[in-house]
């Protein structure tokens, strides 16, 4: 089956080999169908692609791009967007006497723990937001809040894979990869799926951002914070022509390899990656130096803050905007490392300090991003998604933490096609379980795809004898939050 991946030249030609190994034929034909759409291609044969089942939206999209604000570790819903006055009333009482308590990760169930933060109503819609997010609170009229999210996994790694790839197991394509596979990229100089590394790689690692069984060119490019966001972005060759000749030679070698062994995703992706990397050497420095950004803009995001984590996240947010301005399809922002002593949003202890540090770092930049996108007209075609991988328990872990809770969490979306000021779904009086309009991670994926004009049931890729989907055999579009 896989001899065509062997890089050694063979005596038999590609066609002969195809003839000999009938089993290999199908997969090779598929490779040529999918694997040859190079990353960042302007899709010159757009009309051809229109007739290609696998490229372009199925129906008129609302959103062209997605900015995915991933809140690594799981923000506590009852401390952010889902106020529960009952927790204050029964603070310190035994939760097991009030409701059935599921097994938690650390099996250290403490007392019912009221939120250390007050909630106030904001905007015309009157959406309640806790004092953790005073800046995001000013944008609630553009936000559709879902309070009834559930996950299938109570532990970070699986829950992360689930949120990013629609499967709790490692190895499936990430949603950013699916969206680029479905829609292509508009900019030939920048990859279509970019992860802006804020300092924390989510549990589960880079497999959250991979292409899985999709062609390798759809995997995420991770941009690091700092002066060199992409490794080797400055050419090592002093003379430009030297580099060009070297790349030309490598391409020649690769092409001759393809001539000998037949089309292979790995080699073709390598060729397109070289080409893209070369283009990025000129496009990235322009992108990551914020020369044209005014002081007012930088201030809006919080670049003038004393908190280095806030400044870092602010520059990620500005960069995210600049990326989608340049036609990048899917940008994910990971969280800053606000430690020491604070591990992402994952406050198993010391909830107050940990959540406050995390919230302080991301609140103003996110609000700045929403406002900046809106004033430029970009929010109309950009979907901003804010979510963790699960929620937290309404009772304490130990005395002052909260454990993982996959049975209820809050997330929000803003921008293209989303009905601002909406609150969807309901949890019980403790915020522990969903009691109304449950939304699964599959539903979330289906909804994001729907906004991009993709029917999640129709975007498929044949692998292992099956037409695979991001949503597997699940997923319903959450219509109530759409315009």
């Amino acid at each position, binding site marked *: 089956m896989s001899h065509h991946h062997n890089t050694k030249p063979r005596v038999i030609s590609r066609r002969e080999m195809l003839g000999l190994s009938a089993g290999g034929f199908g997969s090779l034909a598929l490779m040529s169908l999918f694997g040859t759409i190079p990353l960042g291609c302007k*899709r010159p044969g757009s009309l051809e*692609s*229109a007739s290609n089942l696998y490229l372009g939206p199925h129906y008129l*999209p609302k959103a062209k791009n997605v900015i995915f604000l991933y809140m690594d570790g799981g923000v506590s819903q009852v401390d952010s967007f889902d106020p529960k006055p009952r927790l204050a009333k029964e603070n310190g009482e035994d939760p097991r006497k009030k409701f059935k308590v599921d097994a938690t990760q650390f099996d250290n169930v403490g007392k019912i723990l009221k939120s250390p933060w007050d909630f106030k109503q904001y905007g015309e819609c009157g959406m309640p937001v806790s004092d953790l997010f005073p800046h995001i609170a000013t944008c609630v009229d553009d936000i559709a809040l879902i309070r009834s999210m559930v996950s299938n996994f109570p532990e970070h790694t699986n829950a992360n894979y689930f949120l990013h790839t629609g499967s709790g197991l490692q190895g499936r394509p990430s949603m950013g990869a699916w969206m680029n596979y479905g829609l292509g990229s508009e900019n030939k100089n920048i990859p279509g799926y970019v992860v802006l590394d804020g300092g924390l790689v989510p549990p589960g690692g880079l497999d959250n951002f991979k292409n899985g069984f999709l062609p390798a060119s759809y995997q995420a490019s991770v941009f690091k914070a700092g002066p060199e966001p992409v490794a080797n972005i400055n050419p090592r060759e002093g003379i430009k022509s030297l580099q060009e000749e070297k790349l030309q030679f490598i391409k020649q070698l690769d092409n001759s390899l393809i001539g000998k062994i037949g089309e292979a995703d790995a080699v073709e992706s390598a060729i397109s990656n070289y080409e893209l990397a070369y283009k990025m050497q000129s496009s990235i420095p322009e992108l990551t130096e914020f020369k044209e950004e005014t002081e*007012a803009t930088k201030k809006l995001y919080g670049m003038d803050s004393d908190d280095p984590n806030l400044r870092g996240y602010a520059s990620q947010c500005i960069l995210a905007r600049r990326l989608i301005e340049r036609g990048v399809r899917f940008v994910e922002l990971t969280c800053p490392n606000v430690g020491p002593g604070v591990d992402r949003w994952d406050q198993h202890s010391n909830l107050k300090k940990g959540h406050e540090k995390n919230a302080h770092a991301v609140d103003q930049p996110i609000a700045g991003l929403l406002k900046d996108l*809106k004033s430029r*007209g970009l929010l109309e075609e950009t979907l901003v998604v804010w979510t963790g991988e699960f929620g937290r328990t309404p009772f304490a872990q130990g005395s002052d933490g909260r454990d993982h809770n996959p049975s209820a969490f809050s997330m929000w979306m803003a921008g293209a096609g989303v009905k601002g000021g909406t609150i969807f779904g309901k949890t019980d009086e403790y915020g522990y379980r969903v009691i109304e309009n449950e939304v699964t991670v599959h539903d979330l994926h289906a909804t994001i795809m729907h906004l991009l004009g993709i029917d999640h049931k129709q975007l498929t890729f044949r692998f292992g004898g099956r037409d695979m989907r991001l949503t597997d055999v699940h997923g319903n579009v959450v219509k109530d939050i759409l315009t």
Partner: protein
Amino acid sequence: MGFIFLMNGGILDNPPDVVLFFGRFHPVVVHLPIGFLIMAILAQLATRWPKFKPLELYLPLMWLMGAFSALLAVIFGYFLSLSGGYDEDTLFWHQWGGITVMLLSFGCYFINKKSSDSLTIPKWISVVIVGLLLMFTGHMGGNLTHGSTYLLEYAPNPIRNIAGLPSKVEPRKKVTVLDSADVFLDLVLPMMQTKCVSCHNEGKNKGGLLLTSYGNMILGGESENTIIPGDALKSELVRRITLPTEHDDFMPSEGKLPLTDPEVLMIKWWIKIGAPSDGFVTELDTEKAVSSLVSNYLGLDKNNLFNKKVPPPNRSIVDSLIRHGFVINPLMKDNYFLEANFSLSEYDLEASDLDVLLELKEQLVWLNLGNSDLKDANLEKIGLLQNLVKLDLRGNEITDNGIKHLSKLENLESLNLYGTKVSKGIVDLVPKLTRLKKIYLWQSEVSKETITQLEEQNPGLTVIFERD
């Protein structure tokens, strides 16, 4: 007899839990006498045929079982009635119906036991009365538990009408054209139903106000000026929904979803024109004050442009545009509408490119010419792209002289003029773009006054002109 005394005396105002505990078993126990007594009645009737004559032997037993279980049901039923909250009239008839059934059942037992011929007539009268009373009492019991409309809720209309119930309410059909929109049924009532009736309904009429029908709305609540036809500002309803949200009197209260700005505008308008009970919006709105709002509220302003099929674009035209730096994307699978984007191009935009673009005027619905060094003169061609729904012109040095060419873009829903040099001219342009929903004017030369004017003249339009 002491039991009867208790019943009449009604001294158990504060019944102990144990009484209510047994009371709750009334619905369980009550089905025993119903079963026994129906069996007894049927058996009694059957004995008129010789074949079933032997059943006579068991009749006293059947009646006795019925009578004793009825007694139990009556006691438990009385206990249950002490918990209160039942409709008094219905309860009265149910209670005394049940007691009568119980007493007559004992009567039937004694008559059958004696089996004297002289009692034949009273026997049959009792049997028939028990049968009828059983049905009546049972029905009253059902009404107490489920409400009086429960039984016939899904009955065919003729049956409902015989029972004195109105015909079932057909859900109102969704309005498809603005001309058929009714001011009350399609505007005011749905707003009340989604935002207000959860508190102002027959069961829970807060402040004595019912908002479930026109009559009730006009009748008003405790404050007598709920709606003053012709004077929106004096109407309490308008005052309550327009207060600052944190005000104690603000409605809807308790953090429930408030009415949106367009909803408030429509309510105000409705009261101002005299709060009519019906009438077509288009006929009432002679000044065209709310027609566009209504059309938006009812979702009627969806562009029907997308319903028509457009021919496939000319391949060589598309290739030529791509060669000149355009990104051309298909926007759907089952039609040939296209998006063109020049904002990412490394090339300079040439005037001739726009001529080529015109060849795609049927297919082109989204156009992004942001930061493309566009000049006023170029807009003349853009203005001919009649199917444009979204037009992005941000970051170009274009002025009022240029945008006046855009006045024929009747499908345009979104216009981005952020970072351009447009100013007052926008006030003349916008009313001509009848479908326009959003306009971006941040960092343009449009003054605050012009923005205010624009917002006042175009109530359905979202104007985005600042960042904070």
